[in-house]
Each structure stands twice: as C-alpha cells, then as structure tokens.
C-alpha cells in the first residue's frame, strides 16, 4: 500500500444473514429442527463492490439514508466485521466511536470507565492514566462527577465522555458514527476544533453523519452511499447537494442539521 494512504478499500463486499425469528431461543431452534423447518433468514448485502483510497490527513464524510451500509463500512474498516469479498488495508492506530457509551459499565465511575475504554482500544494503563485529566477536562463534566457512577450521568454527559475518550486517544485514524449529536452547541464547537487540530496533525477522520452541515463544515471529501454502493465521491458541498436532490427535500436548514 502506498505510504501516503491511511486506508485502502479494494472491491469490498459485506454480506450477512439476519435471522427473522421474533425470538432467537434454543426452544424455537429445537421445535424447528423437530419439524424439519429451516430458520427464516434474509441475506443483507450491506456493502457492494466498493473501492476507495483515503490518504493520511483527510477528513471523509459519509452520507446516505438509513440502511445504506455506512455503519457496516465503518465497522469493517475498524476490523469489527469481516469482509465477504475484497479487503481493507489500514495503516495506523484506530480509535472508534461507533456506538455511544462504549465500554461503559454504568455501575462504575467515569474514571474507571475511561481506563476500561482505553485498555479495550489497545492503550497501556500508563498511557491512559496520563490522558485521564485531559479527557475529563475535555468532557466538561460537573465537578466531582468523574468519580461518580456513570449511571448518575445525564445522556449529554455520557455522550461527551464517550466522545472525549475517542478523540483523546491520539489516534492516527478516527472513526465517528453519529458521535457529534451528543453535546450542546458549545461542546459541538469544541469537538469541531479538536477535530480540526487532529487534521492539522495529519490524522485521518471518517465521519458518518445525518447532519449534513457537519459534513460540509468539517470534511474535505465526502462519499454518498446508497443500498451498499458508493454513488458519488467528491467535494462535500457537491456530494451533499447531489444527495439532497436525490432525496428531493431541498437544502433547508433543518435538512442540513439532521437528515
């Protein structure tokens, strides 16, 4: 892989089967087997023959309607899901925020959860302890909350802490899936600033967002995915414009905020 690339996606396809049973229980499986019936499943082609190169230092926005395959693509880049065909090559340390409240045990304090989240992402305990103060400060939790159980946090505090853990792990590649909707306006601005700083340091960021203004503000490239295929790639404004035309909703401020 060329040295200037952070991620190379080669003819990637991801297909999986989903079980359509209302309850996936052993009892149902035994009943089905005794009646010689097969489980009702549906094959989902989440990503179809996608090829893409993402250079170091780029901020890529991924737009598309629900079920387009955006989250599946992100999980494959993170190594969480396996490709069915093709391959993904990644160069650098990855940090992810693909599901809010990652690694968080609600009975434990925010501080304990920061350690768990960091260790799960592959950092050493020493590295995490050095970053704890920075993470806590960035999350802007009210005083003393960092040592309280996470179950006492508001959803905003929970989201801010998750985001803070992800961005402060000094990743080479940061994958964010709808992670910017967590905080208030002030936190959002702070998050934008942090991400711009990460870009200046040539770190790569991939953002999945329905808030199209976020994509046009932050990203230097965008792709539009639809039913597992990449329909467009280019300047964020152009891609967002094409996407809005496709949806036939126009570029009203409400659409740009949440699509």
């Amino acid at each position, binding site marked *: *892989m060329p*040295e*200037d690339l*952070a991620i190379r996606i080669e003819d990637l396809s991801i297909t*999986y089967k*989903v079980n359509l049973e209302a*309850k*996936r*229980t*052993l*009892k149902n*499986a035994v009943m089905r087997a005794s009646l010689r019936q097969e489980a009702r499943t549906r094959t989902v082609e989440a990503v179809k023959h996608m090829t893409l190169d993402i250079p*170091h*230092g780029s901020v890529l926005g991924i737009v598309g309607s629900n079920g387009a395959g955006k989250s599946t693509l992100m*999980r*494959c*880049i*993170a*190594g*969480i*899901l*396996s*490709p*069915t*065909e093709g*391959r*993904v*090559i*990644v*160069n*650098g*340390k*990855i940090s*992810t*925020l*693909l*599901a*809010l*409240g*990652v*690694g*968080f*045990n609600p*009975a*434990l304090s925010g501080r*304990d959860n920061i*350690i*768990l989240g960091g*260790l*799960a*992402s*592959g950092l*050493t*305990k020493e590295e995490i302890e050095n970053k704890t103060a920075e993470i806590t400060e960035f999350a802007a939790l009210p005083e003393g909350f960092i040592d309280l*159980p996470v179950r006492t946090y508001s959803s905003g505090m929970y989201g801010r802490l998750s985001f803070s853990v992800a961005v402060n792990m*000094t990743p*080479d590649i940061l994958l964010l899936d709808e992670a910017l909707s967590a905080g208030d306006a002030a936190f959002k601005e702070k998050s934008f600033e942090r991400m711009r700083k990460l870009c200046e*340091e*040539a*770190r790569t960021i991939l953002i999945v967002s329905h808030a199209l203004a976020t994509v046009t503000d932050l990203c230097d490239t965008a792709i539009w995915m639809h039913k597992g295929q990449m329909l467009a790639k280019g300047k964020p404004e152009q891609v967002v414009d094409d996407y809005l035309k496709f949806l036939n909703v126009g570029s009203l401020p409400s659409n740009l905020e949440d699509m």
Partner: protein
Amino acid sequence: MPTNPDFVPKIQVFEPHRASLPPLIPYIKEFWQRRTFAIELAKFNDKAEYLDSRLGKVWLVLNPLLLGLVYYLVVTIIRGGGHNNGLTTLDHLLIGLFTFYFAQNCITAGAQSVTLGGRLILNQAFPRALLPFSCALQAFQQFIPTIPVYIFILVTGKYFYPATQVPGWTWHFIWIPFILICVGITGFGLALVFATLNVYFRDTNKLLSYITRIWMYLSPVLWLPETLHGKAKLLLYANPLGPALTATSNVWIKGEGLSGLIIFGCIFWAVVSMLLGGYFFISRERDFAIRIA
C-alpha cells in the same frame, strides 16, 4: 507520508477468512497484548458487583459456606452420621462446593459476557475471547478468599476432633495449583461454548442454571468419589469436572497424591474444553457484532 508526531506505521489487513478461523498467531498475539484489559475488567466488574451490597465481598465466602451447611444438614444430620464422619463430610462438601462454584462462576458469567458486552463489541475490534477470559479471572479472584476460610475450618475441626480422617499438613498439597489451573481452563473453555450459544439463542443462560445444578448433583461434591464402584466410576471421568473434583477430595480430605488416571483426566478435560470452546467461539466471533446489533 503522515506528519503526525506519534504516527507509528501499523498495517492491518482485513480479508475474508478462507477457513472459519481467523489467522491464529496474530489472534493469540493480540489476545496476549490486551490481557491487561481482561485483568482490569475482572477487577472492575468484581468491584461493581458488590458496590451496593452492605456485606460486600463477604458474600463470596458466606454464600458457598451457607450452602455447604444446608447440604451438610441434608446429607449428614438427616441421614445420620458420627462425629468424625460428619466432619469429613463437611470438609468434603465445602471444598467441593468452593471448587465447583469456581468453575460454575467461570461458565455462567462467561456465558453472558458477550451479550452484555454489546456496546464494546459494536465499537471496538479486539479478541472477543478476552470477555469470557476476564470472567474466568474474576471467578478465580472470588474463589481465592474461600481458601483461607476453608483452611481455618480444617484446622479448627482437626483441633477439636484430632482423630478425623482429614490430614494435617502434607506435601501432596502441592497438587492444588495444578487442580485449580485445570478447573480454571475447563471452566474458561466451557464458558467459550456457552457464550457463543448465548449469542445465537438468548435463553441459553436460563438453561445453564439447570444444567449446572444437575451437573453439581452428578459431580463428587455432595458425595465422596469412592462411593462409586466398578463401571459407575466411569461417570467420574465422563464429567468434565469429575477428575478435578476427585483430585480435590483426594488431596484435601485423604491427604493423598494424584493417580496417573486422575492427572490424565484433569488434563484431558482442560485441553478438550479449550480446543472445543476456542474453535467454536473464535470461528464465530466475527459474527457477534451482527447478532448483537
């Protein structure tokens, strides 16, 4: 070339698995590198489990101790038995229960570890076997405090009834770490099996509570291993915990060493459980994120 100050080239290639297992050497390397995560997760889960309990970790000892006393009443007093026999039975019951609970906790907590670790699994790539492994570590941490309590009971019993069959200090106690390692590995291997099943069938855990109860009755916990004779003795070896529990009774209660057959039985079940559980779990773990989402 990236200019970020902490960039260290780390190429990762994600490809379809030709066989059902991912490349095992990188998997084991990654598992070893992130072992601190499993250790800390075990510590934190242990801490969280008893945060709201007034007696806290005392329950770790109290629970099997009370259960031991209940079974002692059932087995000895109702059925009848002399002082020495009663003490031997109590000692056997307690060490059997403590050891069985160690394995049971590995399995029951491990079985839920993947389904309860949903967000972690949806968000981060790491060897998923770390989750049941941390449960096995937690079960071991919870088992450790029962040993001094058991030794105290043994010593007190020996003091009041010096004629008891239960031995004093013997060099055969050096077998205890071997037995515990075998129990831990067997428990971890079976936890991998049940954790995988629980992802596909969410009622596995309910079934598991019945399985472990019946399993305990079939194991030499409430009865002494020498109760079985002839072909019935095969029951001990067909049970994944049978050889280890027999070994436990031999060392703690009779003060004897382990026969070759018992050592083989302990190692056999540890290896079989690990291979079976490891294959079943690792070959399916890339599917977990889809099943859990």
